[in-house]
């Protein structure tokens, strides 16, 4: 049974039509995960027993007439989401021994929808990275070209979906961590509006930026997944109490009358010409679909990455203080005293990039530097958000490349943090503003995929999904597979 090439929507139909049971589907999926071809290092933990039990429960639910569209469909959770009774490592040695005593809200929501979690996906350590090379469990390979990175930090999720190991995955996006790996792996990934999805149980990197979202092959799948994932959770003070639209039922419709803004800052210096050409071709497709275009300016774009690399490290330096070797996680051998316990447990438990960001954030918040760094960054943050508000007064959507280049080689940027940070130059501003954004496949540079980014106004995930879906009705980039088209 070759089910692993199918999308969520197709599997949903197959399950509903009795073509296969969730048990059969899950067994096939688990078997596929064990094949050498699947050795992308995308999955850190396979949860076979729990998966089969969940699959059986899904089949019973279907028999009882209580199945939803996602019931019985497998997925992987990024290992940043706490899963009760299952190791939740966050890609770090610090949590290599951490068996979470509780489930994240997103995990509960997907389980409530009947989805079957088959494992936990690899990721940059504590979601800090754009290449998946900072993981304690080693780099993930890009299924399109195993010499290339899959992007990060949700690189394991992206590679697992692109490599057809699973039809769907969860991801989190703090500065582009869903959209950039989706782009580099040729899949569709949505970062919702900040507050749309509960952060409860999602291990915090930068609390005012982090947002969970779906990663799958198509916009339609992302719509189905977001419907289940979103929803009010009183345990997260920043989660918005707002009705969740039926995204999957509102995908149809042409784009006539839709105005799309093209920010000149997203097409300037630093953009790979071949990526630029793919985006230009996508603009043509959208024109054919009835959209009109307008040139806009997001004047403070060049300040987004600098502001981000103050705000995110500042928040992370505080968020990661709880990893101290006292109540959970890594603890050094035979600490001499309390300070030794802290310093060695943290020094051994955290990798280089995490330590680097903790130190940057500690410095930015310390006495005498707060105003120059943190406060300044929060002021710049407002300027960046205001740019978007102004733009959305004139346009419905904003379009541009997701990342300035296609996937780079493993090792290429590892020792140059700043050049690594610049691969998120088009995605980061969206997090600072808290807006929704989606990346969808729009071509290739050689064998490596190119991602197209659409940015919407607050809570306009529906419009984003609709525009992405329309594009996917007239193009087949999302159907291309590393193993051949399907």
């Amino acid at each position, binding site marked *: 049974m070759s089910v692993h090439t199918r999308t969520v929507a197709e599997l949903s139909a197959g399950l509903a039509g009795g073509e296969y049971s969730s048990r059969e589907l899950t067994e096939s999926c688990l078997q596929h995960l064990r094949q050498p071809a699947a050795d992308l290092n995308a999955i850190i933990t396979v949860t076979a027993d729990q998966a089969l039990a969940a699959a059986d429960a899904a089949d019973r639910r279907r028999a009882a007439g209580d199945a939803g569209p996602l019931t019985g469909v497998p997925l992987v959770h990024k290992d940043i989401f706490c899963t009760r009774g299952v190791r939740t490592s966050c890609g770090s040695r610090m949590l290599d021994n951490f068996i979470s*005593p509780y489930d994240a809200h997103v995990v509960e929501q997907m389980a409530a929808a009947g989805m079957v979690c088959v494992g936990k996906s690899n990721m940059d350590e504590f979601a800090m990275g754009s290449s998946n090379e900072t993981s304690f469990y080693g780099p993930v390979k890009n299924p399109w070209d195993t010499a290339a990175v899959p992007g990060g930090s949700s690189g394991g999720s992206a590679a697992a979906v692109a490599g057809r190991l699973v039809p769907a995955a969860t991801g989190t996006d703090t500065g582009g961590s869903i959209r950039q790996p989706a782009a580099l792996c040729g899949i569709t990934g949505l970062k919702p509006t900040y507050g749309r999805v509960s952060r409860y149980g999602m291990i915090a990197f930068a609390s005012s930026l982090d947002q969970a979202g779906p990663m799958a092959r198509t916009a339609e799948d992302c719509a189905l997944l977001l419907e289940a994932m979103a929803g009010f959770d*009183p345990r997260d*003070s920043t989660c918005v109490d707002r009705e969740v639209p039926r995204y999957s039922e509102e995908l149809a419709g042409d784009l006539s009358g839709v105005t799309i803004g093209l920010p000149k800052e997203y097409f300037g210096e630093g953009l790979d010409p071949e990526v630029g050409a793919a985006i230009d071709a996508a603009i043509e497709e959208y024109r054919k679909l009835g959209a009109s275009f307008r040139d806009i300016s997001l004047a403070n774009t060049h300040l987004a990455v600098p502001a981000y690399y103050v705000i995110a490290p*500042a928040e992370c330096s505080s968020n990661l203080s709880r990893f101290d070797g006292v109540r959970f996680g890594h603890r050094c051998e035979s600490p001499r005293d309390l300070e030794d316990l802290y310093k060695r447990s943290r020094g051994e438990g955290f990798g280089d990039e995490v330590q680097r960001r903790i130190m940057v954030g500690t410095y930015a918040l310390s006495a005498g530097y707060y105003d120059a760094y943190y406060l300044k960054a929060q002021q710049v943050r407002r300027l960046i958000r205001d740019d978007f508000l102004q733009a959305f007064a004139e346009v419905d959507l904003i379009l541009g490349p997701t990342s300035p280049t296609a996937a780079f080689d493993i090792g290429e940027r590892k020792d140059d943090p700043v050049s690594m940070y610049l691969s998120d130059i088009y995605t980061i501003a969206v997090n600072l503003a808290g807006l929704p954004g989606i990346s969808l496949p729009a071509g290739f540079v050689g064998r490596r995929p190119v991602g197209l980014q659409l940015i919407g106004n607050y809570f306009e995930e529906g419009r984003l999904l609709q525009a992405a879906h329309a594009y996917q009705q007239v193009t087949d980039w999302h159907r291309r597979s590393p193993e051949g088209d399907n």
Partner: protein
Amino acid sequence: MEWETVIGLEIHAQLATRSKIFSGASTAYGAAPNTQACAVDLGLPGVLPVLNAEAVNMAVRFGLATGCTIAPRSVFARKNYFYPDLPKGYQISQYELPVVYEGEVLIELDDGETMRVGVTRAHLEEDAGKSLHEGFQGVTGIDLNRAGTPLLEIVSEPDLRSAKQAVAYMKKIHSLVRYLEICDGNMQEGSFRCDANVSMRPKGQAEFGTRAEIKNLNSFRFVEKAINYEVERQIDLLESGGTVVQETRLYDSVKGETRSMRTKEEANDYRYFPDPDLLPLEITADEIEQIRATLPELPDAKKARFVSDFGLSPYDAAVLTAGRDLADYFEAVVEAADGEAKLAANWVMGDLSGALNRDGREIGDSPVSPQMLGGMLKRISDNTISGKIAKDVFEAMWNGEGDADAVIEAKGLQQVTDTGAIEAMIDEVIAANPGQVEQYRGGKDKLLGFFVGQVMKASKGKANPAQVNEMLKKKL
């Protein structure tokens, strides 16, 4: 040189909520270690704080009671430092924008003067856990039950000039939080404690001297002793040409001295920043008015009323209103005694307080109820018993022998007011003491007291002293 002491207090009052400030774990005192530390309190990866409405309500009550401004918008910030009793590596507190600020309280000084003490601010924050050093070899045990208990940190202006003033201020705040029912005030359990900032300056100098902060004082007595010790220490230091170091000190109640704390010292770069897991706390004018409507009568207003309505002295009124329980008890006694307020005040502050002290009881578990005490006072005012006999009646009631009427009846303690009976006793006394009668009649008026005493003794205290007095004068 003449020195002036400058003191400011930071009082930590644990708010009497059922659940913690940011989690649904219980705040009940005395549970087995870590059984009331939930995922949020432990700072497990991925957990998030949600603010307790009642903690906010209580902070606003305090703000209104002290004439503070209630911030329409306040912000929670993280105070970052590593310590094992601080699970997240930061304490959620308020920094630049506290929930209430700029108010005042009035305190009574020993000389009867009233003094204004400024309240700089009061902010909400979470308490830390506890470190236990006893019973372990080379290790410390951490109990996080207390972690996340809501605290109101009440910061005074540096208006206090002596340890006595500091204690009077602390007692006033203690009384207020109990009136407001926002804190149980239990100092042994640590529900109400304070840090004292103490500095010295030459009298007349405007600038403040360098201050030392004495941490975690959990009794009024310790506050007084620690400050007095610290004042002497600083004066000695300054007068011998030294300087005071800005530092945190601990009070050692066994040795009666303060000493420098070895830990937490260099970690004073707290890297405060707004907590991104929490949003600004907004309180509307309507909400403030709703809370204001639920405030009880506060000690200052109650005191004024006791003076004007009951004719009490300001001193008595202040004593009786220091605690809400005592004031309520007193008012119930007055009601039961048909308005005999002064008599009630004397008895409540005298015999009742004495008995409570003697037996180590709180007013709430006095064996003599306000109705019983009031009933007895009625028997004094209707001359059924004398004030002296009343002391015996009170003791009997205290010992559970029933209410006043029952005790009087059972022991036959009614005053003798029958003139015939009193006259007979007087005649007997006169007959038995011819020498004294001679002297009295010779002009030694002071001997009247002797005769009254003899008659009262003969009546076993039951004769009405006023009546005895009058009749004796006539007879002699």
